[in-house]
């Protein structure tokens, strides 16, 4: 599993290269097709079909949640592209928590969606994880994960930024 420094580096290189952290724009720039469909309970999926990359997002989610799902699936494209092409292996990997691929995707997504500066500033202002999530229009789980990654990279957070272990092991 990748460490937080490596993931942070990838996030930075990406946003620097494409000049955006908007996952939909990144998809367009990186040649990943985004589609919407009714997926039942599934929020989103990433699949390579006949030489084309697709992210399918549930059409039943709010626009903001779709944004977060897109980012998560895009992170699979960035980190796990080759693994995903072996379909049988891929789905087992997603389910097997010990491979950590869901966690990696979530960590990269958190780093892409939020900058160190904005999180730092809001935390200094005394905002809770929930408030930060609200302000930055993301989920509390992503904020906590971002804080965790920042801690691993040497930042000092106090208080209520404990990460929910379930979030780390499952999809968002």
């Amino acid at each position, binding site marked *: 599993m990748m460490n937080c420094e490596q993931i942070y580096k990838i996030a930075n290189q990406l946003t620097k290269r494409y000049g955006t952290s908007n996952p939909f724009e990144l998809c367009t720039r990186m040649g990943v097709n985004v589609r919407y469909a009714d*997926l039942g309970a*599934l929020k989103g999926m990433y699949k390579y079909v006949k030489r084309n990359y697709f992210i*399918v997002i549930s059409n039943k989610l709010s626009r903001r949640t779709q944004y977060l799902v897109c980012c998560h699936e895009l992170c699979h494209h960035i980190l796990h592209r080759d693994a995903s092409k072996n379909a049988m292996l891929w789905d087992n990997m997603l389910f097997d928590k010990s491979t950590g691929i869901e966690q990696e995707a979530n960590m990269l997504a958190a780093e892409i969606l939020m900058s160190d500066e904005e999180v730092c500033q809001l935390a200094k202002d005394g905002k809770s994880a929930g408030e930060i999530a609200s302000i930055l229009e993301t989920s509390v789980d992503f904020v906590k994960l971002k804080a965790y990654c920042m801690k691993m990279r040497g930042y000092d957070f106090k208080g209520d930024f404990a990460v929910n272990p379930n979030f780390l092991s499952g999809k968002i």
Partner: protein
Amino acid sequence: MSFGEKLKELRTKANMSQEQLAKELGITRRSIVYYETARRYPKKREILTGISKIFGVAIDYLVSDREDFIVAAGERYGASGAKDASQLVAEIGGLFAGGSLNDEDKDKVFKAITDLYFESKEINKKYSNK
């Protein structure tokens, strides 16, 4: 039961030989043999329609949505299309082995993926030099 097994059952219950059925459908006896031994799916959907009319059953009964997809892909893109589709169906089968989706959701996801397949083929067509 697979399509081939159902076909054989329907045919034998109606006391029809493979030759007779083939003649009625306007195809060769060998095709019927291949269908029944799961070697091949019909190349055209109209054959499925023909079979459903002869035995008075719905197409839904004859083929699962997975099998219908393979036939449709074959009709549109030929033998390689049918092969790709079979492969995709096998992959999707593996996808659900994790077991966290109920049947209805599996069907929805299956449909979404088959749509990706057809779209992919169209995208590729644009970039081929034929």
